[in-house]
């Protein structure tokens, strides 16, 4: 269970004496269950990615706490191996200088765990690739393949939670569906929960059962997938109306 309590985040404008602050997250309260997949829906600039970075412990909140099973997430030992992430931009999600095997192994180094090539190969097979990819470099992969490698890397520590920061947004629709199906499959196989961050309600409904609508740094509405048609807030209604289905 990840609990986000009264989290506020400012960004200071650059400059030694500049006191200007920009509020990105404003008193956010959220509980993320470990039984269902949750999605945070918001448009660009709504602060949803910042929230993602806070949950990953990359940045510190200015006030409020984020805890995992009661322990603060800011300690690397608490989050190590339990929370992982897949990011949006597949071109930068793997360091272009290192091979796929090294990339997948990376989280293990920090946990001082050994990780053989066989285990890596097993993981790759799980995400729909094969062992021949181990020696490849990121620039030799297509978008979908790179994202699969990123997923394998995220799963290598058997995490409870995987944060998907717009993980499929920059892919073509057909590949989006493939990757989303992979997520669903892996969720059962590896017993992981997803926290998806996206701007696309259709993707959200595809993968997640709980929806959190996010706007200008605030949680606007929380709702179960089954009730998505009953959103009340004006912003959420607008968002819903703007969806173009086929």
């Amino acid at each position, binding site marked *: 269970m990840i609990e986000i309590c009264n989290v506020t985040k400012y960004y200071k404008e650059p400059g030694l004496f500049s006191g200007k602050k920009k509020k990105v997250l404003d008193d956010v309260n959220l509980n993320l269950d470990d039984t269902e997949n949750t999605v945070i829906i918001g448009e660009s600039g709504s602060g949803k990615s910042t929230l993602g970075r806070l949950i990953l412990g990359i940045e510190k909140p200015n006030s409020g706490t984020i805890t995992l099973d009661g322990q603060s997430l800011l300690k690397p030992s608490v989050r190590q191996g339990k929370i992982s992430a897949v990011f949006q931009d597949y071109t930068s999600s793997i360091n272009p200088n290192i091979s796929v095997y090294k990339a997948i192994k990376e989280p293990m180094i920090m946990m001082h765990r050994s990780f053989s090539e066989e285990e890596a190969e097993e993981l790759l097979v799980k995400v729909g690739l094969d062992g021949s990819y181990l020696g490849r470099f990121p620039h030799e992969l297509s978008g979908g393949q790179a994202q699969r490698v990123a997923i394998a890397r995220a799963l290598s520590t058997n995490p409870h939670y995987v944060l998907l920061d717009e993980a499929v947004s920059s892919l073509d*629709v*057909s590949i*989006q569906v493939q990757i*989303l199906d992979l997520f669903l499959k892996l969720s059962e196989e590896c017993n992981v929960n997803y926290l998806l961050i996206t701007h*696309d309600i259709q*993707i959200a*409904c595809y993968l997640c059962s709980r929806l959190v609508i996010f706007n200008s740094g605030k949680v606007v509405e929380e709702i179960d997938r089954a009730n998505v048609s009953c959103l009340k807030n004006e912003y959420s209604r607008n*968002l819903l109306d703007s969806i*173009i289905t086929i």
Partner: protein
Amino acid sequence: MGVSVKTDGHYLINNVSFKLDKGECLGIVGESGSGKSTVIKGILRLHNSKAIGYDGEVLYKGENLFSKTPKEMNEVRGKEMFMVFQDGMSAFDPSARMGSVCAEIVRTHLPVTKSEAREMICESMTRVSLKDPEKILDLYPFQLSGGMLQRMMISLVLVLNPSVVMADEPTSALDAITQRKVLDDFIKLKNEHDSAMIFISHDLGIVKKLCDRVMVMKSGEVVETGTAMEVFEDPKHEYTKYLIDTRVRLSKNFKVLMEGLCREKAS
């Protein structure tokens, strides 16, 4: 018209042929790298690299655009065929005010003074529901939102009144709500104007909503052409089926949930 664009003997797009009638809206769909925007850039001969050459012909009002001189081409561009770009933020000169760039484009084609051009733009801006046009024209592009910039381009279309509007993914860089509003503007433009339109998008939903005819492209070649009805209801080619199928699957959950609502409302 038929277009082929090749670079050093290697075809970027090959043997693309289509016909566009007056007032018709053609949607070009395909995944990234399928050569969608290369087609319309090719029609206007916008590839300025020497390595890229053209084959075939583009017949516009009986004249072949590929055999025109650059000067004649400049008269076609903008006045006859106007292109709406996907990213408004980079499409306008970053260090010029909106008003000066727009007026310059208008004055290239219409014999009007600066202030007249400005008035014309203001007038068409109110038609695409941009409020306070005078103020917007005094701003720089980076001070406007993506949706507003996209509408600025639409209002330029309204002023110049070209016969063909070509839109290159005009909504894909926008947020969902803005995307919807800009799409509505395009639908309005299509209904109220008699210009023909080529609309490029990777989103089948948008194309289905807007276009009369659809052309599906895959790695530089046309896979299927037909009316929107035909293509979406009864796709012939495997690839089209695959594209539509994945798109339907993606929105399936959402659609089911939303239809639940409709049924509830009905009962």
